[in-house]
């Protein structure tokens, strides 16, 4: 590690973790019908269990997230090189009696970011950016307020996330991060990078995204960033993983944003290793057709 001057052993492994959704309102023994927040259960199947229940519609008990990260720490931490962590670190806004606030979203993100720092940092008090295992967080649609809505920076939210992620985002990228909430981390210096892409700027459910063709559109600015960064990485002979919360598939992105993003991944196939995303909770893969994206883009332009 050129920055810290320390030797590091490469393991040839990394972790992708996503959509933790810890819910501090989760109470064991309450009613699943009341999203595990309150109420007396009607029947046995309606009881919120200690570690959470699959397919119930409830978010994660905080305990589930804590136990997950404890398990990762005890079993994987010393065997991996980096962690790609693709967002949504807050409960859903599905309880009318307890609507989410912006402060709650930031607070929970702060708690999870602190936990990730504790687990993967090198414990160097003089340099909080010194990590044994690099962590690359990206922004989820539930990590912003109001839900899904995220404007082009600099905004109070981009600044707040820089504050929360200051140990993860390289210092020289602060101004760019303020604009785009996206950044690059060299996980193997000079060789391998991971891009944390703020996919909310391409996400059609973000009311502030109309297309990726106008220069004032957040998606246009994000793609501008992506293009220059990819070209610089190519120039340096580096390879790169793409990462972000909302997967770049047609149903999620505005059409022009989808076409352009897919085309970038196609035309930089000499350096892009792959793309890792979250949001959909379903473990699967989708082949993205670069040639078709170019045709669609030309047709629509």
């Amino acid at each position: 590690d050129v920055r810290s001057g320390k030797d590091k052993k490469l393991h040839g492994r990394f972790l992708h973790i996503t959509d933790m959704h810890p819910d501090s309102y989760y109470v064991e023994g309450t009613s699943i019908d009341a999203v595990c927040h309150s109420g007396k259960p009607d029947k046995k199947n309606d009881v919120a269990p200690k570690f959470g229940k699959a397919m119930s519609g409830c978010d994660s008990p905080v305990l589930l997230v804590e136990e997950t990260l404890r398990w990762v720490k005890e079993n994987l931490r010393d065997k991996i090189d980096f962690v790609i962590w693709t967002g949504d670190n807050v409960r859903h806004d599905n309880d009318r009696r307890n609507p989410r606030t912006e402060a709650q979203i930031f607070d929970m993100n702060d708690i999870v970011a602190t936990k990730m720092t504790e687990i993967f940092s090198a414990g160097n008090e003089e340099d909080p950016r010194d990590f044994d295992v690099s962590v690359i967080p990206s922004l989820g649609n539930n990590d912003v307020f109001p839900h899904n809505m995220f404007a082009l920076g600099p905004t109070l939210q981009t600044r707040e996330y820089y504050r929360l992620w200051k140990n993860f985002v390289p210092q020289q990228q602060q101004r760019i991060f303020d604009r785009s909430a996206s950044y690059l981390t060299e996980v193997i210096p000079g060789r391998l990078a991971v891009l944390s892409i703020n996919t909310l700027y391409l996400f059609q459910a973000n009311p502030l995204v109309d297309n990726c063709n106008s220069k004032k559109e957040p998606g246009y600015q994000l793609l501008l960033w992506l293009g220059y960064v990819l070209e610089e990485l190519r120039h340096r002979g580096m390879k790169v993983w793409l990462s972000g919360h909302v997967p770049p598939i047609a149903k999620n992105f505005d059409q022009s944003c989808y076409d352009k993003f897919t085309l970038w991944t196609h035309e930089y196939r000499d350096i892009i290793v792959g793309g890792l995303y979250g949001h959909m909770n379903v473990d699967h893969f989708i082949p993205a057709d670069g040639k078709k994206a170019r045709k669609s883009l030309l047709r629509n332009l």
Partner: protein
Amino acid sequence: EPYSRVREGGEIAEEEEDDDDDDETNLNRILGHAMTAKEAYLMGAKPSNKEAYMDTVRDTHYRKVWNKLQRVESEDTVESENKNKKKKNKKKKKKKKKPITRQELIERYSIVNIGGSVIPTFNPAFRIWEYNISDIADESDFGISKDKPWDEFFESLDKIMEESLLEDEPDSKNIDSRISSEGSDKKKKRKSDDKTVPVEMPEGYGLGPAYVPQLFTPTRFVQFYADLEKINKEYYSSLDESKDVFKYEVEYTSDEKPYSMDTLTVGSYLDLAGRLYEDNPAWEQYVEWSFASSGYKDD
């Protein structure tokens, strides 16, 4: 270039039309799914119509890959078929799809990997990826960069992004003065230059780790999950509250069936997509794991 190619070949144009029809159908199905998903969201995070969604993935994305895999021929065959077709096209437009090489097929795709979540929409899950580091282990100049520092690059990128925002302001004095100092030709050129559309990858650039096994090529993954029903049951049936019952287990790996991938290149993924389209038992296993072995079924 694609425009002219589309206009040139009747057969390619037909393929385009097929794709467009598919897209329209897909869009309707996708919108239906999105609406259901929104309703589900309003009620909570309970999964809804996920089997239908996975079926759409199979019937659209994987089917298209399977179709193209059927058209893969050796390079020699493709060349001679193309020559023959040019001659025949002059006489009569044929419906048979053009053969393609495996290289052509693989190069047009990239893979979007979507991870299972910790939130128990299904069971909590995450993945460990393994990748090739064999060529880097013995390097002595590892990590030494001869390039300019990143701060310089990001400073100039910051300026580019700032200027780009100003360019769109027709009334801005900054823009007026900048454009007038550049001259009218440059002004014209700049206005039509969309930097968010990439130029084609230059010829002679080799395919990267996603396509050809090399340094950093992903080689294998291990999918972990926590069986919540089992964990909760064990916790409640245990007399000792301090007993550590919580653990993740290996759910599956990329080298076992139906994945059976010896490396995780795009080509291997496309072969898998083709298998999942045509092989029902393989598909069922894949879907079960997509839902983190929770036993989820659509209502």
